[in-house]
């Protein structure tokens, strides 16, 4: 859905940059469910690769800076501002904010609908995170 071999960009898509697999796949699938093409990047190296790949058409970036190494999210935003100013960058600091950003995108998205409330995404990620080591799960419950 997001790459072709002809060299011409395909339909518009959203780039998710999130180092946390649980929230990354939940947010990405939420956006897919409301009709977006989504590219998933697990770190900023992959994000830069996607942005420089001519066969990918990226319109919006949703980066969860809470999961990225310090300053990398801002470095990404700065690079985009300087090199791809036409792109919209939405920085989120945690799954709650990311889910709400995704819900806003779904409101104006290609199908003009939200598949379900963003709280369902947040609850899903928290349930998954509860299966992690107790110390990490406890941190999640406090957010």
């Amino acid at each position, binding site marked *: 859905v997001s790459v072709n071999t002809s060299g011409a960009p395909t339909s518009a898509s959203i780039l998710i940059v999130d180092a946390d697999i649980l929230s*990354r796949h939940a947010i990405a699938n939420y956006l897919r469910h409301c009709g977006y093409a989504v590219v998933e990047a697990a770190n900023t190296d992959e994000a830069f690769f996607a942005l420089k790949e001519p066969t990918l058409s990226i319109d919006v970036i949703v980066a969860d800076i809470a999961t990225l190494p310090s300053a990398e999210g801002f470095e990404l935003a700065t690079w985009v501002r300087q090199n791809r100013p036409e792109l919209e960058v939405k920085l989120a600091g945690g799954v709650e904010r990311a889910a709400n950003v995704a819900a806003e995108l779904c409101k104006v998205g290609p199908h003009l609908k939200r598949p379900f409330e963003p709280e*369902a995404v947040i609850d899903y990620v928290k349930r998954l995170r509860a299966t992690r080591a107790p110390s990490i799960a406890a941190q999640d419950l406090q957010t």
Partner: protein
Amino acid sequence: MGLASGELAVTPRGLGCVLVVEDEFLIRMLLADELRDVGYQVIEAVNADEALEVLRGVTPDAIISDVRMPGSMDGIGLLAAVRQSSPNLPVIMMSAHADPADFVAAGANQFLSKPFRMGAIVEAVRRELDTAP
């Protein structure tokens, strides 16, 4: 207790849930898109550590994994871990630098030698899940 793939609250299950484990961004994306295009739900993991993170909470219907990956564990270690916890979960290994017989002996259901045509990944998953769109 983890979530079964059918309980995924935020996505439809489609023909089944496939966990793709591949550190090379473009290959991972192409594999995932190929599977999504025919109706599978796909979870993309960048290495074995992420895959194990997923497996603690979600039971996919099949796993496709690269062998050589950065992180605390490679694909062989991931295969061994999966076989301990889920002996019947289909695992398809892929590599450009390995003997297929080694992986079947280690418990892999199938082995794909890189490079392979994209359609081969769908055929491999269909063989395991007995699904066709």
